[in-house]
């Protein structure tokens, strides 16, 4: 299955032992580099030379001209724009609290994946070029004395490799006594790399598609319409109820912005059908937009404020063009972080929306109160074939909130699951809520060229899942993030699970929700049989009429 060793999980404690370090265990060339055309689309410099092969990634002669000066200029620009970045670079006291908190360190044992070491890759250059002590000791030829280092080709190579082994999940920052956010440092590093000819293909290619077509997948309006029609058919075939998934409906009350994976991948699409059924049952007037058909915002992953803003403005434009009153986001982790934490400053003010609702709102903030108020007819036994656990997605857990109480982002999804399922068990406390482990694929890592990083980074979550599987009979893990769902379906087979063990939260709602007028299985069968009989009868009648007509014509000819 792979040419590297898959970590072993035991299920004994649910928590990994801290591994012995193995320096350079994950030393590599990093992910595929972005071509000129993608960089150009993102307004990044293109005067670099595409390396002939991965062995040459980061070689000075492949980078932009004056790469060193331009990297330092970018660093100066970023620390000026984001005061937090400079504070994080200045304030670390090397206490070590973060060292064993990163899933990539635990899964790979490479000490450069310890959060403090990852930060230091950038920090040592900052100290050398931007602090008095660093400049002074550099003159004496010993910048290392104060933790500084010259910016060299090798440093750039390490940046590219190790800043693409960070999913920006921010677990380390929870345990840092100073709250240093490695994610922000890793975003800054990627922004610098983008400006010296080392963009990452996965992120930039995808953002190019959003700017051009409207979503990460590059799903054009026609394909989207066809997909939605197919889903309406599926819901009808399943329930006998005509549930609509409207697109570009002017004057609708709600614009739903959801990750494009919801239109495309499993089990995401089951979640999308769940939102549609809930909206239908609550009588909400909603629509999707073919222009803003993407909830995800990869601009955050590469630290590019300009690109993040450009993507967010599509949502604003769609809301204005369609004349909606509310914006609701579907199940997507970092989309919700961007929406909840930054949307107003990126694309606001939203004074044209109905101020009586949260702006923006999470789909779970609609479903949860509806369930609590008994507005949805639920048969929990329809989920009795499963025992569920819930994976808190990092960007939701640590970068946002839901509802009007602290911790709502942990409680609301669980309340929904418990309202539609009889069997629910949480994973060990150190692996959930704000201490949740990343799926291993977030922050721009969900690409095949980083498969080893993804598989190993999933180990802590897999250990916790194995624990509840072995001790509490858990059969399925629910998630509310497109990346988590895709990452898990791909990597859990490496750990002895099967891909269908990952489900969407709204898929569970969909399973248990009995729509008004919904037919039972027997009624559906009877209905289908009746429709079939009708078709046959109509066919017979047509044939009979044709035969009669032919006979009459023959007669008149004779």
């Amino acid at each position, binding site marked *: 299955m792979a040419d590297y060793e898959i970590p072993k999980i035991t299920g004994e404690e649910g928590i990994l032992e801290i591994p012995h370090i193995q320096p350079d265990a994950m030393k590599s060339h990093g992910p595929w580099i972005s071509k000129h055309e993608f960089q150009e689309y993102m307004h990044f410099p293109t005067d670099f030379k595409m390396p002939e092969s991965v062995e040459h990634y980061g070689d000075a002669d492949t980078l932009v001209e004056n790469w060193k000066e331009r990297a330092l200029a970018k660093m100066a620009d970023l620390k000026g724009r984001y005061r937090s970045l400079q504070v994080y670079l200045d304030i670390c006291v090397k206490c070590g609290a973060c060292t064993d908190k990163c899933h990539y360190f635990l899964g790979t044992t490479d000490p450069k994946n310890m959060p403090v070491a990852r930060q230091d890759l950038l920090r040592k250059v900052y100290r050398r070029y931007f602090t008095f002590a660093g400049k002074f000791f550099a003159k004496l030829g010993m910048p290392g004395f104060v933790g500084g280092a010259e910016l060299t080709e090798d440093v750039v190579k390490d940046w590219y490799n190790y800043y693409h082994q960070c999913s920006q999940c921010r677990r380390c920052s929870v345990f840092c006594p100073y709250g240093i956010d490695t994610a922000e440092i890793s975003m800054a590093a990627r922004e610098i790399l983008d400006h010296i000819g080392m963009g990452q293909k996965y992120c930039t290619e995808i953002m190019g598609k959003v700017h051009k077509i409207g*979503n990460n*997948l590059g799903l054009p309006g*026609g394909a989207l319409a066809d*997909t939605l029609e*197919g889903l309406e058919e*599926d819901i009808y075939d399943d329930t006998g109820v005509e549930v609509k998934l409207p697109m570009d409906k002017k004057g609708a009350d709600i614009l739903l912005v959801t*990750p494009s994976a919801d239109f495309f991948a499993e089990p995401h699409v089951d979640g999308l059908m769940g939102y549609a059924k809930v909206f239908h049952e609550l009588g909400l007037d909603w629509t999707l937009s073919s222009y803003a058909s993407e909830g995800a915002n990869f601009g955050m992953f590469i630290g590019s404020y300009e690109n993040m803003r450009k993507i967010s403005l599509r949502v604003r434009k769609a809301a204005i063009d369609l004349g909606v009153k509310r914006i609701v986001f579907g199940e997507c982790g970092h989309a919700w972080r961007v929406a909840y934490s930054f949307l107003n400053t990126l694309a606001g003010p939203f004074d044209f929306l109905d101020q009586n609702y949260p702006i923006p709102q999470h789909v779970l903030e609609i479903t949860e109160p509806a369930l609590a108020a008994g507005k949805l007819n639920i048969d929990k036994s329809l989920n009795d074939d499963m025992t569920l656990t819930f994976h808190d997605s990092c960007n939701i857990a640590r970068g946002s909130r839901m509802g009007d109480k602290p911790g709502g982002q942990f409680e609301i999804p669980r309340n929904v699951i418990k309202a539609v399922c009889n069997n629910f068990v949480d994973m060990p406390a150190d692996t959930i809520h704000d201490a949740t482990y990343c799926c291993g694929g977030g922050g721009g890592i969900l690409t095949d*060229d980083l498969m080893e990083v993804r598989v190993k980074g999933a180990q802590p979550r897999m250990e916790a899942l194995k624990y509840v599987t072995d001790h509490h009979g858990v059969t399925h893990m629910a998630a509310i993030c497109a990346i988590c769902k895709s990452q898990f379906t791909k990597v859990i087979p490496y750990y002895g699970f099967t891909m269908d063990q990952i489900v969407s939260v709204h898929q569970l709602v969909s399973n248990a929700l009995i729509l008004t007028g919904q037919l039972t299985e027997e009624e559906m069968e009877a209905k289908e049989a009746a429709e079939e009989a009708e078709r046959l009868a109509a066919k017979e009648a047509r044939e009979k009429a044709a035969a009669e007509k032919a006979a009459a014509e023959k007669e008149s000819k004779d």
Partner: protein
Amino acid sequence: MALEVDGQSIELDEEGYLVDLSAWTPEVAKALAAAEDVELTDEHWDIINFLREYYEEYQIAPAVRVLTKAVGKRLGKDKGNSKYLYSLFPYGPGKQACKYAGLPKPTGCV
């Protein structure tokens, strides 16, 4: 990366997908499959042909769900499921079948 087909050099990207989608021919599909030790059977071709038709109409590969549904309608219900598709394309019908069909790889959170 490049692939030799009938003396012609076909350019591939880092992950083995065609750079120029119009360079596709059935021989290219066979060569792409052979490079992964897969011999294309009629069952594979049914899927590849459907993918190409869908792409021509919609400029994107179909979602797994769309694909399974279409396969079910065309080839019988027992084949309209992802298990059958994975048995033909173990690396994932989306990615592996798209590669042989000369389609760009679906990207994003999938």
